[in-house]
């Protein structure tokens, strides 16, 4: 058993099998597909959904909204992180904004944003809003934790600003930025899909989840949730792969 756990793939498969078994046992114990569908019911519902074009349209549009919101949040959050780390005035002025965004419940934002934006744009904006403070805080911490001795060294050896940024600050901030990416992606998915549940765009996973719940299609609800999890994992892997390539290239 110990040897089996040394192989990463086998370990992952065994862990997954264990939790699917626990789920199956729970489904047997409950004995109602309406309350808790079994893994097989969910898989069947997922296969049935996969043959419908609307499933793929919903997945693609949700993916697009979440990704667009994530990218915008990372870009603006990183810029604000740098700005507030290097300027005390900007930090004093803008930090309350970050605290408000962090503390406000996502549903309040969704309902508020729906007053101004369409149901299609709202999930994107909400994903952006949830990612923004994560990128902001992480990047600011990265800039502030840059080794002061390396900055002094760069000054002594006359590094111009761009070189200092490339050789000292960027590599120091990178681990914080990557951490913000993985955390932010999870938040973007959760908030984006939640926004779709409330905003009801024409196509979207969140809307489909809401409708499954409305018509008591619990296996379908589980299937849509599985789709969110799979898409989220796929997107996270893709983003990490792309960032890894960019870092290596540099």
């Amino acid at each position: 058993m110990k040897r089996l756990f040394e192989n990463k793939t086998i370990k992952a498969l065994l862990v997954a099998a264990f939790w699917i078994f626990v789920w199956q046992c729970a489904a047997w114990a409950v004995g109602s597909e309406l309350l808790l569908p079994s893994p097989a019911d969910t898989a069947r519902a997922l296969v049935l959904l996969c043959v419908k074009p609307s499933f793929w349209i919903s997945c693609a549009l949700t993916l697009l909204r979440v990704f667009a919101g994530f990218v915008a949040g990372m870009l603006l959050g990183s810029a604000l992180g740098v700005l507030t780390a290097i300027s005390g005035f900007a930090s004093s002025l803008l930090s309350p904004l970050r605290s408000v965004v962090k503390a406000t419940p996502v549903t309040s934002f969704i309902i508020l944003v729906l007053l101004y934006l369409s149901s299609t744009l709202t999930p994107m904006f909400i994903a952006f809003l949830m990612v923004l403070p994560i990128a902001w805080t992480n990047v600011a911490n990265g800039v502030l934790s840059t080794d002061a001795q390396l900055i002094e060294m760069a000054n002594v050896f006359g590094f111009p600003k761009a070189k200092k940024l490339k050789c000292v600050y960027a590599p120091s901030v990178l681990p914080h930025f990557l951490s913000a990416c993985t955390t932010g992606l999870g938040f973007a998915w959760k908030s984006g899909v939640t926004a779709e549940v409330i905003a009801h765009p024409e196509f979207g996973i969140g809307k489909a989840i809401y409708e499954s719940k409305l018509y008591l299609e619990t296996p379908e609800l589980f299937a849509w949730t599985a789709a969110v999890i799979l898409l989220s994992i796929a997107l996270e892997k893709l983003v990490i792969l792309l960032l890894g390539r960019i870092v290596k290239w540099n």
Partner: protein
Amino acid sequence: MELRNVSFSYDGKPVLENVSLDLSGGRHICVMGESGRGKTTLMRLLLGFISPASGEVIRSENERPSAVFQEDRLLPWFTAERNVREVWSKDRFALSPKELLSEMELGDSLDKLPKELSGGMQRRVAIARALAFGGDPLLLDEPFKGLDVPMRERIAKKVLDLAGNASILLITHDEYEAKLLKCDEIIRL
């Protein structure tokens, strides 16, 4: 570069009092003293990181000091060669970073990251970097820390050969190092 009657204190506790030294004209000066006597503070004053409480630090406009810090301060994400290359320019130092590192007996460690090098090897990369910058004066804060005696002798000889006519300020505990770098004057703090 010159210090005239410079004093400095941390939290009211005097660290340096009326220290003067003149690093012009290719002079080699050694500053010695026990820990806590302000040797590194002296280096920080010369590099302009701090200002003296009294006295003057005189630098000419086109002066470009080069330094080996008490800590190696290598960029941990770059190889040994890249650490040197980032400060090197052909106009100021004839040898390439590869050649310079070979002179420091690191020819087979060019592609290694600092964490893959021993303490003594990292020290030699820091020395190579200071030389590659081609600065004058060359400020060396315990440059041979972590090197055994034969290696110290060989590296000191290389520093003398490669620094050309640059002035040198050596900060050390060990008077033997002052001899190795042919210091004209020893200031005891």
